[in-house]
């Protein structure tokens, strides 16, 4: 191993996942994007240094003052992968159970198919993206076989909530816990009046919402022994 491991004579394996977030917060700092390393130069920095196989990618972002990069060992050894963006490497992350997917650029329709393909053992998915979906091509339904927990950040665009919860796009046969904005769920289901079998809500045992809310007339109560629609008088 190089430098950092000069004294580690017994070291047989070093693996890592290092995400760097750089923010040029000083307003007087003149940003010159050409000063940032390219993905190629980041990858080359690991070559010949006995770090094993390494992946690197730069996160595309709409924020001028922000630069993000992620370098990690392959095979990826950790059970959680945080800060994944749409430009991640096309590898198999078989150890990962928990994935945090955050972005501020538009996702295309194929992203969730790629996530499903690359993270075959995913149990918890947390997503945040306030940009709308890109394009609307018809795609085959993506089934997340093992996903149990889905958390959707409040600032997430309704396009992605629709994509995740509507069976037209994604099937979540084992989903157990759902965190979502009530208002967005209300909007998506047209006040809980749409056919509930169209949505990935039938198996949900635990629904967590961010805000105080007045229950819709047709709010669906999801209970352990099967879902049932209850008509609840408005407060």
């Amino acid at each position: 191993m190089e430098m950092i491991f000069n004294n580690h004579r017994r070291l047989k394996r070093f693996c890592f996942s290092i995400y760097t977030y750089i923010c040029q917060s000083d307003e007087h700092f003149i940003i010159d994007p050409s000063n940032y390393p390219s993905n190629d130069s980041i990858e080359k920095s690991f070559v010949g240094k006995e770090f094993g196989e390494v992946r690197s990618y730069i996160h595309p972002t709409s924020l001028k003052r922000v630069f993000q990069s992620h370098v990690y060992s392959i095979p990826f050894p950790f059970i959680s992968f945080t800060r994944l963006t749409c430009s991640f490497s096309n590898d198999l992350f078989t150890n990962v159970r928990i994935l945090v997917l955050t972005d501020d650029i538009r996702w295309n329709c194929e992203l969730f198919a790629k996530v499903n393909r690359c993270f075959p053992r995913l149990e918890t998915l947390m997503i945040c993206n306030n940009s709308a979906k890109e394009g609307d091509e018809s795609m085959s339904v993506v089934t997340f076989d093992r996903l149990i927990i889905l958390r959707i950040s409040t600032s997430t665009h309704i396009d992605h909530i629709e994509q995740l919860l509507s069976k037209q796009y994604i099937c979540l046969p084992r989903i157990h816990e759902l965190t979502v904005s009530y208002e967005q769920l209300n909007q998506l289901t047209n006040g809980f009046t749409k056919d509930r079998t169209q949505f990935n809500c039938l198996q949900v045992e635990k629904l967590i919402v961010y805000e105080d809310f007045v229950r819709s007339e047709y709010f669906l109560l999801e209970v352990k022994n099967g879902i049932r629609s209850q008509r609840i008088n408005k407060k």
Partner: protein
Amino acid sequence: MTGWEVEISLIDQMYSSTISVTLQKLDIQLKTFDECLLIFDGRFPSLVHCTIFILKIDLTSTSIDNQVNLRTRGYDDLIVPFVERMSNVEEIRLLLNVERRNTYLLVDGNDLQQSSSIETILF
């Protein structure tokens, strides 16, 4: 003592004594990086496997000089010396999210090298 799975008031005791001479595996969540250093200070002489989770490594929470903190970076001054200190380990897994301001330097293969060559007197 093996198989701790409960929250324990460990750290207060750690400042004064050896916690366990037999413990081989320790999975622990800590609040500060200082506590992390104490684990490898001879308090667990039989430790074979250790997983540490720290939600946020905050420079101001460490015991090194505040004036030094202002002009140095957490990665170089805390993480690198910490890894260097563990000279007997056979395997290291390092999962890090690093935040930096007003710089073009990110953590890559070169940075792992350059950072590690800085002589730090933390330990």
